[in-house]
């Protein structure tokens, strides 16, 4: 059965057959539109790099269309499906997330190595640091993290509302549309297309496309919640919704730009000078807040208590944390611009909000760890739960460090140094990736109706690779960053700077090698995870899935499903 069957299922007939005839028709119409837009971009943008993107869009549309056509004639799905949750997009999202994760982390190791051995560009423009680096950041944040968020949010949303997703087309539109955006982003960077806004590099047409995708994503949330069969909305959904809503606002405002012409990829931002910098870092810091924090807290709030089998420690702390985090983060962005042309008063506000933010952040981390009371023996024995526990700890470490670095005096040492890079990776590797891997490990057996993962031992191996990689990486960058910061500010007794910039590069070289090793360990762990999950999926399913508990209690729509059998 195994791999082949699954690919067919995933790639076409099985999953397409789950769509109704009407949904398949709509899907075909949307895909024709996508292909037309792609061709139009290719024609309008000939002579410009936009043409390459046009062809990529058209090709993407055609591949999905080919998969759709293979199952277009399948009979309408059994009405019984309304008694089950709709998990196909989640399954595909998990796989996409892992693929992006391995690619993004590989490129991460590459750019880390580039800093230690600059010749690794092989004299190719596409392999220069400036082009590969956003492939790494977008690959891991949006490709790996974003797909994991979409996949888990669909899963969590249905389970905590006891309602099936409102239809079967829009989740696919969101998942595949989002991945088209990711492909446009990554290929654009390699060709040299960028808006030069960190974490918002893709050009105007990719940004417009993401707006459409994101609005549909939010509507799925609202439509499902409106049909929920639980009286209350669970905390995980507060966070997922904050993530979706705020990312939409951030994305739209920061990407306001005027293209050179409709046939050119290049655009000019609506903002300039210090306003541009402030808008960018309002966006950038809230991308950390609402993409990399709120979204993944949603993940934590479902998979951690579920895996631990414990109730959330304090509902009241959840409330304080949620409103504290969402309110404070909004104002903290200016701490990225301490000691710049940004007016001093904006810096003061950014610093103060960043400091107070520590309290709700630690309340969140504490709430997660206290939830494990009564389940610590499971943390010891179960590496999946240990991933989540470690994520909560690193969340605490990274948020403490963040608030600390937002203090202007501290920032005068840390700014522009590798300390920042170390801080980001304490959060990205220690918190975001750990909670993602923990959640995916928990989720995969449920989704594919397997009794357990292929190998618990490999999860254990991954856990220690991930932890070792993170620790090596973060310590290397702390050392490098603080060394660098101190060298930059050291004056000798004659009142002259003691070190030239190139002296600091020599001092940082060993740490750059250590950082590459740390990244390599982390990448190795991700490859192990990919193998383990792939083997879990491709093993034959047991005859009785015993998943009766994982169903909405009653079908949401009083439709003709009853005639279908019972």
């Amino acid at each position, binding site marked *: 059965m195994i791999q082949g069957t699954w690919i067919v299922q995933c790639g076409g007939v099985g999953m397409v057959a789950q769509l109704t005839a009407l949904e398949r028709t709509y899907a075909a119409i949307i895909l024709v539109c996508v292909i037309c837009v792609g061709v139009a971009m290719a024609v309008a943008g000939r002579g410009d790099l936009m043409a390459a993107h046009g062809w990529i869009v058209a090709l993407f549309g055609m591949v999905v269309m080919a998969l759709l056509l293979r199952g277009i004639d399948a009979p309408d799905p059994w009405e019984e499906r309304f008694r089950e949750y709709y998990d196909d997009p989640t399954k595909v999202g998990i796989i996409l997330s892992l693929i992006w994760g391995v690619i993004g982390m590989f490129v991460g190791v590459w750019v880390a190595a580039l800093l230690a051995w600059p010749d690794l560009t092989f004299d190719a423009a596409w392999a220069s640091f400036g082009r590969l680096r956003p492939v790494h950041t977008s690959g891991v944040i949006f490709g790996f993290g974003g797909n994991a968020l979409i996949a888990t949010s669909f899963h969590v949303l249905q389970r905590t509302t006891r309602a099936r997703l409102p239809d079967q087309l829009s989740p696919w539109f969101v998942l595949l549309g989002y991945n088209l955006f990711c492909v446009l982003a990554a290929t654009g960077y390699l060709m040299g297309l960028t808006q030069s806004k960190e974490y918002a590099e893709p050009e105007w047409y990719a940004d417009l496309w993401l707006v459409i995708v994101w609005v549909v994503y939010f509507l799925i949330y609202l439509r499902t919640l409106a049909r929920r069969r639980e009286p209350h909305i669970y905390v995980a959904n507060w966070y997922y919704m904050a993530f979706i809503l705020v990312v939409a606002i951030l994305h739209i405002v920061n990407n306001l730009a005027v293209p050179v012409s409709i046939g050119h990829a290049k655009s000019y931002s609506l903002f300039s000078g210090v306003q541009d910098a402030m808008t960018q870092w309002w966006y950038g810091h809230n991308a950390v807040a609402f993409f990399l924090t709120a979204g993944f807290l949603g993940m934590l709030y479902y998979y951690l208590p579920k895996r631990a089998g414990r109730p959330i*420690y304090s509902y009241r702390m959840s409330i304080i944390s949620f409103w504290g985090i969402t309110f404070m983060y909004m104002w903290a962005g200016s701490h990225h611009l301490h000691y710049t042309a940004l007016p001093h008063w904006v810096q003061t506000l950014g610093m103060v909000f960043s400091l107070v933010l520590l309290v709700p952040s630690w309340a969140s981390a504490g709430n997660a760890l206290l939830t494990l009371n009564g389940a610590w023996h499971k943390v010891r024995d179960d590496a999946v739960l240990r991933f989540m526990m470690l994520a909560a700890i690193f969340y605490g470490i990274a948020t403490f460090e963040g608030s600390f670095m937002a203090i202007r005096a501290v920032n005068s040492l840390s700014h522009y140094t590798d300390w920042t890079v170390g801080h980001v990776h304490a959060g990205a590797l220690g918190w975001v990736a750990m909670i993602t891997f923990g959640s995916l490990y928990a989720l995969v057996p449920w989704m594919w109706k397997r009794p357990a993962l292929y190998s618990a031992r490999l999860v254990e191996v991954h856990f220690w690779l991930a932890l070792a990689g993170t620790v090596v990486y973060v310590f290397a960058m702390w050392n490098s960053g603080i060394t660098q910061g101190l060298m930059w500010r050291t004056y000798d007794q004659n009142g002259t700077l003691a070190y030239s910039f190139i002296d600091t590069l020599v001092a940082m070289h060993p740490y750059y090698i250590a950082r590459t090793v740390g990244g390599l360990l982390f990448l190795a762990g991700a490859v192990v995870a990919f193998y383990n999950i792939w083997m879990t999926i491709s093993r034959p399913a047991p005859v009785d899935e015993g998943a009766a508990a994982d169903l909405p209690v009653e079908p949401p729509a009083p439709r003709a499903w009853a005639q279908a059998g019972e």
Partner: protein
Amino acid sequence: MSVGERDPVTGHMTTGHEWNGIKELHTPVPKPVWFFLIAFTLFGVIWVLLMPSFPYGTGYFKGWLGVDQKQTVAERLQEGSADRAAWVARIDSEDFATILKDGELMPIVRETGHTLFGDNCAACHGIGGTGNSGYPNLGSAPMLWGDDPQTIAQTIAVGINGADPQTRVSQMLAFGRDQMLERPAILQLVTYVRSLSGLEEKTAENAAAIDAGRELFAQNCVSCHGEDAKGLKDVGAPDLTDRFWIYGSGREAVYQSIYGGRQGHMPSWGLRLSPLDIKILTLYIIDLREQQRATGGSGT
């Protein structure tokens, strides 16, 4: 509406809500959370009152401490230049020879010069001034435009083929590409030029080439490189008889130099650095050369 139950582990009540098996405890917010929330907020309020903070219409609240980052920078810059004032004045006023002999000033020149050189010159000339392919060795090679202090300072200030109107201009002609010499002639020149510094021994096979090359050299090259091939400082033409080669001494490299010509570029640093910085760099380079001479430094 919902009725909670008591959690046996913590002894706290649940809220009575349940989502797919997940419950929540109604645990009160721990006191430390309230404490720190209030403490941090209080600190925030106080800090906002002390520092420049809230905007209003056309201005902003300046803060009770009256701190202003632009003013702070200006003050720090002033303090910084006050620290340097004593020795800066001496370097400014005294001549090169005096400073070079001064046991107090030269350590300062070495420290300051190291940073200036590292930040401005090392990208091309290497961190120790040892040069790279295309960029001369400053520690031991003869200076193209002369090595007395005034000349070095002038070279740094105006650059070579640089943006300054007074820039030094130097161009080695593209004898091959511009069809002044055929390939066999260039090859003969290569052999001759390399033989000048002993890179090619005269043998039976290349004797003819060297002789022909000498003839070609006399016809084409002496106007810049001199009859003795020792170069002319007026036009920045290098000495071809020494062991230093800016663009490499291999046959291929020398061929490329003659075929395509060379037009090295050094920025006009006077447009960017202060006269004091240039004077320090000049002293630093002279000092570097003296140290290299003392230790018998080698070059490429």
